[in-house]
């Protein structure tokens, strides 16, 4: 276990270094001057003196390699810089937005998991039965309807027409329903088909025939023999999607005015808020690697043979 953790930490450091360096270079190559963007926010022109002063304040007049060295030093000393826009610590800004993102990701993950397991298992009980057909329809819709469109459809139906649920913001649990559905429904429907296919494929294996020969009930075989094996790739998929949700879902957060990391990151790109962009990338890498570690642990617990690999 110690070796496993050490390996993961080493991998994490390499990934953080490579990804954040790449981000640093790409952001500096991208068109757009932070000083101009900040000073002309309302399309009011800015003076030469103001632009020069601000560039000096932000350290943008330093040569590229000096900016890079300064940034690298800051990262490895735990100082992630100060946002150009809010003038506050990047780390504090990210932490402030993390609860909202975790809340939405967890709710979206719950929707996705319930749909994946519910629809996937129900569909595999009777091939071409009503539930299987329903699952197929959901999967088709889930893979073909973009999330922004689904979001607006849900808002139109439940907020504008019926008035049952709020369309935006983050106040109480009712505000979480529509964004969580938007985030989890499509992914859940698609993953349900993957689970169904896995279940059907494993149904003909020898260990299933052996279990039948021993006289186990159909439900026991389905849940404790077939599902146990079929769920492994699903856990990988769930983990990957959870990482994606935790890193902040820009589209859903924008549509529902959800104050999370994804929207903040996009705003930072628009405003060329370099410290925030770089800080977010490191933050996201930690989140993604952390979730992948969790997935590894769960998979190893389910299938101990994976430890030997």
């Amino acid at each position, binding site marked *: 276990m110690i070796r496993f953790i050490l390996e993961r930490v080493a991998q994490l450091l390499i990934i953080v270094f490579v990804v954040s360096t790449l981000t640093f270079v790409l952001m500096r190559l*991208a068109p*757009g*001057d932070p000083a*101009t*963007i900040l*000073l*002309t*926010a*309302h*399309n*009011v*022109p*800015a*003076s*030469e*003196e*103001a632009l020069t002063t601000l560039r000096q304040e932000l350290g943008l007049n330093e040569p590229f390699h000096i900016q890079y060295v300064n940034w690298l030093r800051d990262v490895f000393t735990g100082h992630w810089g100060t*946002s150009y*826009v809010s*003038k506050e610590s990047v780390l504090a800004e990210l932490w*402030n*937005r993390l*609860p*909202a993102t*975790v*809340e939405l990701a*967890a*709710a979206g*993950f*719950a929707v996705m*998991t319930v749909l994946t397991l519910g629809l996937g298992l129900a569909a595999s009980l009777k091939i071409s039965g009503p539930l299987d057909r329903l699952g197929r329809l959901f999967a088709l819709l889930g893979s073909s309807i973009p999330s922004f469109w689904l979001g*607006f459809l849900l*808002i*139109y139906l439940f*907020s*504008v027409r019926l*008035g049952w649920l*709020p*369309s*935006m*913001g*983050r*106040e*109480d*649990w009712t505000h*979480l329903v529509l964004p*969580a559905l938007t985030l989890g429904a499509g992914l859940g429907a698609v993953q349900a088909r993957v689970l169904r296919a896995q279940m059907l494929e494993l149904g003909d294996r020898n260990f299933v025939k052996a279990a039948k020969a021993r006289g186990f009930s159909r439900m026991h075989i389905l849940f*404790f023999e077939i599902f146990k094996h079929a769920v492994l790739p699903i856990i990988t998929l769930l983990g990957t999607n959870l990482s994606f949700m935790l890193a902040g879902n820009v589209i859903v957060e*924008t549509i*529902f*005015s959800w*104050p999370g990391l994804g*929207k903040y990151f996009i*705003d930072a790109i628009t405003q060329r808020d370099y410290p925030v962009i770089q800080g977010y990338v490191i933050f996201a890498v930690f989140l993604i690697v952390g979730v992948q570690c*969790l997935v590894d*642990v*769960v998979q190893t*617990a*389910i299938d*101990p043979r994976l430890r030997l690999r």
Partner: protein
Amino acid sequence: MISNHSRRSWLICTGVMLLLAVMALSGCTSNKTSNSSGKDENASAQQTATGKKLVMAYTWKPSGVDPHGDNSWDVMRSGAGETLVRLNEKLEPVAWLAKEWKQDSPTVWTFSLQDKVTFHNGKSMDAASVKASLLRSIEKSHLAKDLLNVKSIDVSGPLALKITTNQPNAALVSNLADPSTTVLDVASMKDEQSYPAMTGAFKIKAFNKDQSLIVERYDGYWGEKARLAEATMKFITDGNSRLMALQSGEVDVATDIPVDNAEVLKKNDKLQVLSAPSLRTHMLVYNMESPVFKDAANRKVVDSLIPRTSIVSAVMRGFGTEASSPFPSILPFGKVERKALDGTADQLLTKDGWQKDAQGTWTKQGKPFEVTLLTFPQRPELSVMAEVIQSQLLKEGIQVKIRKVENIDEALTKNDWDFAMYSMLTAHTGEPQYFMDMFYSSQSEANVSRYSSKPLESILNSLKLAKDTAQRNAVTLQALDIINTDLPQSFIVHPDNVFGVKKGVEGFTPHPIEYYYITAQSDIAE
């Protein structure tokens, strides 16, 4: 029969699922407000026992509530902030925190302040506190520093302030209406646990980062007390989301309604569309170093072919007016006529050495009249305008290649363009001086056309000295005459500011100056 290993696996999986479920639910059960957690205070558009509340869907997302930072406009729009001078509907400076003012010399002004004004923390406003506030705004805001150009500020009495500028700055009074000069109690900024103490009819109750700014009635207000008990600005950056929030009744007012959606609101009998001409100008900027457009005749031909009427009706859906100068006609110095072409476009081009080839394209010395037009995605209507202009010019034998760029200001610093769509707020304090200095000075980075005119710069220098309004307007018109003769830009349209408002909302009057949204007069029917 289930093995121990299976049980353990199930326990772990179930534990992980439960953990995620708890995470999901943990954030949903609390209504506690906290700036750091991002939880929004419950602000519904209803009348409660504590009084009437109004909720506004607001386009922008301020990063803070310091009126001397980048968020001055947002704070001013909330009704919490006030400046020494206010701009009326005619965009003239009128008394606000300053009762009156007089110019002692080209560089010295004396302001008399209102008495009985208190900050939101109960302290009285006097000349010393206003001086401290102005000095802080100059220190914190580049725009305030440029607009005021202050050499010194002196307290000449308990409620009298003397402002000395570095150079003659006749626009000083109007520029003091800019939100970056909002008056606050500087001491209140030292306390991180409280919000800035300003002087407006509303005081800040809560600022929820990324979500909302809530203001409540300030009972110690020096003027007419606010009719609303509370107002909330919800930050909804997506136009469609703002529209739907309005349609669902979650908000009472929505700002910056996309013109395409205005028709939808007009059909809703519970809502109304309000608009006001803005001080913004959508324009074509010519690259004065472009091989084609360094020739004024070619610029004039293109200018004459822009279908402004069609653009206003089809692209802006009527929410705009045709432009004939950088400034809209609601300004006294904006009533300018476009200069007519001396002949037809064909005659002018022929005179200039162009010939039409077999395909109907204008050519000169074997080269076709082919130009590159830049546009950018942040203002979608500009890209549509670019296509309309491209189509019109093609009919006349001028070929236009449209190139969409992510960052227009960056793209304009390069040389691979001939003309570009652009949009500027041209008189944000009702004064022409600041914009023209920035946009037409040959040394300015904001001079994106790279246009240089000594006569114009000379007139702009004389504008700084022009004292009375009539004289300033006359000098500005002289400057506009040069601009409309040289045509470094083609001015296309002045867009309107469009708001969606629930019927029953009163005292919400769209203003050409985009500073005043929530005011003491804002009200909502019971």
